[in-house]
């Protein structure tokens, strides 16, 4: 009896609290004084305790000594490099770094939860720009970085923002010019093919997508070798599909950057090619392959051709991991014979600062260091296709790289023409990719391409309206 009474009170209290929670300004991170303008409103104007910047000559790394920052990374070779060397940063600045590395999806999940709680529990985090650029921005999860970059008090002269390739910087910048993330790596799509198989069959490099199909047919010899493999799994397949879509003159969105254009004749042709290749020349089960199943098979010598992010190739050339070391050729994905367009789009990771962070300036020091020339060079040598030109041109890289020159050349050519492999839309790109991905998958299993893309178009139209289909 008395038990029931206080349960009622407790419940009522909870309901009131929750109502209050929802009534506050959504769940954007709390606005703090240090927020305004980003160049460290309140805090850093209490200038330098120990350094001098009046003359702008000596940059004080130890300004924020004693702070502790929380960093959330997705599993990535660059993250591994940072992890290995973070002690150097801690020594340089006196800032302690609590670094957590999680697989991408779990990292995203955790970030979402932390942002829902206000965004103070994480200071810096890796962001997959192709997926997150728009939606994190409109949700107020990114701290704008322009002011930091422009402030010589906060940015070390060695940072050299100009060293980053234009394409990369663009990927980390919003259409209104706000820089939300410092780009870390680019992973443009390039074609991997088995030089040895081509030679044995007397084939030259394919000059068009149509030739790719022809060659796949010639080399297709199940169950020993399959002509071609790629990602069939919904969600994963959309970014790879982007290459073909754009090569055939299509796109996900119209000129306004928002209206979906998924069932245009170009899009239908593209899915005919993309899914058709998998249906006709792919290994069994390919409809549910993600990058790892695809790449594994290629690595084990069971496939003649595939394309994916150039960085995956680092495993191909390692004889401890692959049976095709030394037999792989690299080239840009050939153009469509009708349009002549070559596409080498890419996903990109960037490092961002949480808008709800209470230690933004100290975090900015970390960001500078982690994307600085030194760390990036180490990452480059470790096999990451970084975004710094200096890393690509450096002697150490060229000397120590175990990748064949053909790969380096192809990568560089790809960088010159690359763009993001997904449209920048203010919706959950995971949902977007699931909807479009299902359609692409259905065509692999035999569905009519026009109908499948009509479905996708309908689904995305609904999604953009704000009412999700699911």
């Amino acid at each position, binding site marked *: 009896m008395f038990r029931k009474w206080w349960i009622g009170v407790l419940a009522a209290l909870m309901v009131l609290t*929750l109502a209050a929670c929802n009534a506050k300004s959504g769940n954007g991170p709390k606005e703090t004084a240090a927020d305004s303008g980003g160049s460290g409103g309140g805090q850093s104007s209490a200038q330098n305790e120990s350094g001098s910047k009046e003359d702008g000559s000596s940059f004080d790394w130890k300004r924020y000594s004693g702070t502790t920052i929380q960093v959330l990374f997705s599993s990535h070779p660059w993250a591994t490099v940072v992890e290995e060397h973070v002690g150097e940063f801690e020594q340089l600045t006196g800032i302690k770094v609590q670094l957590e590395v999680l697989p991408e999806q779990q990292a995203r999940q955790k970030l979402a939860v932390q942002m829902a709680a206000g965004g103070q529990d994480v200071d810096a985090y890796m962001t997959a720009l192709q997926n997150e650029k728009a939606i994190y921005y409109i949700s107020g999860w990114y701290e704008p970085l322009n002011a930091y970059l422009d402030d010589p008090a906060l940015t070390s002269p060695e940072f050299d923002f100009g060293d980053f390739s234009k394409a990369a910087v663009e990927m980390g910048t919003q259409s209104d010019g706000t820089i939300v993330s410092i780009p870390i790596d680019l992973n443009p799509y390039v074609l991997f093919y088995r030089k040895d198989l081509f030679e044995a069959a007397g084939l030259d490099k394919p000059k068009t997508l149509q030739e790719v199909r022809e060659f796949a047919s010639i080399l297709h010899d199940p169950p020993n070798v399959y002509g071609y493999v790629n990602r069939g799994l919904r969600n994963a397949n959309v970014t790879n599909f982007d290459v073909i879509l754009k090569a055939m003159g299509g796109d996900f969105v119209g000129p306004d950057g928002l209206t979906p254009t998924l069932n245009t004749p170009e899009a239908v042709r593209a899915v005919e090619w993309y899914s058709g290749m998998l249906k006709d020349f792919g290994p069994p089960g390919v409809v549910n392959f993600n990058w790892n199943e695809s790449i594994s098979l290629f690595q084990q010598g069971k496939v003649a051709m595939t394309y994916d992010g150039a960085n995956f190739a680092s495993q191909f050339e390692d004889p401890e991991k692959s049976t095709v070391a030394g037999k792989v050729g690299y080239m840009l994905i050939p153009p469509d014979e009708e349009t002549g367009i070559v596409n080498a789009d890419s996903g990109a990771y960037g490092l961002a600062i949480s808008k709800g962070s209470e230690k933004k300036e100290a975090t900015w020091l970390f960001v500078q260091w982690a994307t600085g020339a030194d760390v990036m060079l180490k990452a480059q040598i470790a096999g990451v296709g970084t975004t710094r030109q200096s890393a690509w041109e450096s002697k150490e890289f060229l000397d120590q790289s175990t990748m064949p020159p053909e790969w380096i050349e192809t990568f560089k050519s790809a960088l010159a023409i690359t763009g993001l492999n997904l449209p920048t839309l203010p919706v959950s790109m995971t*949902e977007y990719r699931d909807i479009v991905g299902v359609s692409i998958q259905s065509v692999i299993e035999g569905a009519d391409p026009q109908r499948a893309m009509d479905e996708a178009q309908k689904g995305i139209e609904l999604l953009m309206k704000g009412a999700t289909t699911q």
Partner: protein
Amino acid sequence: MNATNRIRLTKMLFIAPASLFLFLILIFPILYTLFQSFYNKKLTQLTPPKFVGFDNYVRALQNPEFWNSVQITVTFTVLALAMQTVLGVALGLLYHQTFKGRGLLRTLAIMPMAAAPVSVALIFVMMFNPTIGVLNYLLEQIGLPKSLWIYDSHSVVPSLALVDTWQYTPILMIMVMAGLASLPSEVFEQAKIDGARGWQTLWHILLPMLRPFIVAAVVFRLNDALKTFDTVYVMTQGGPGNSSEMLNIYLYNQAFAYFNTGYASAIVILFTLLVLLLVSLLIRGRRAN
């Protein structure tokens, strides 16, 4: 304090710590979820969410993808539980016998339930690979046709049910053994006397007596199987297409990938009701006998 109150207090003291703990720790999430289900909250929006009443629920119930998930969840559960129960009963009966090597083999038989589901799932992904996986290799050697396992929309749910069976049959087996142990020995004496017709004894007498134990075990597993997440998430993430999108996966995607907090909360409530429904059906079914 009089005797009655004293007894009442004592009873409370035994039960209170556990109940209070569970209450305190769960009341907030439950109320939070219930509450959010009436709003159109999205994790990524900055504007305050609007109260939408039962909109989220209606949307879910009208959504073919929701029902797809329900159907997949039920199919998976029925398949998995059927396999586990049959195997579990058979194994339970088998290990009830005394024979040489029983102890060792029994230990080996129940080991799967101790393995970490996520690790097991990843190993199975490896084994299920249609081209370079070991299971297809073995099938080929025996002369059976290869399967696409989790890489095809028709075979994915049975494959997942297989993994679940591998891992959790031991639980059913142990419960059946527990049941057998508590049966009066006369039953077995009778069977011994009957000799060759022992199988009939088994069927007509033993199994019905075992029923309460089997049902208890099935209820326990039903609860967990309906909510399977770890293994399916790791192995197929709901694919191919949506053909293995269990309700928990659907829920996870809505909440953490699509950021539809309000809608996801409604799904949670519906999901819980579904589990409640199925479990009570099963229990009622048992009581009816």
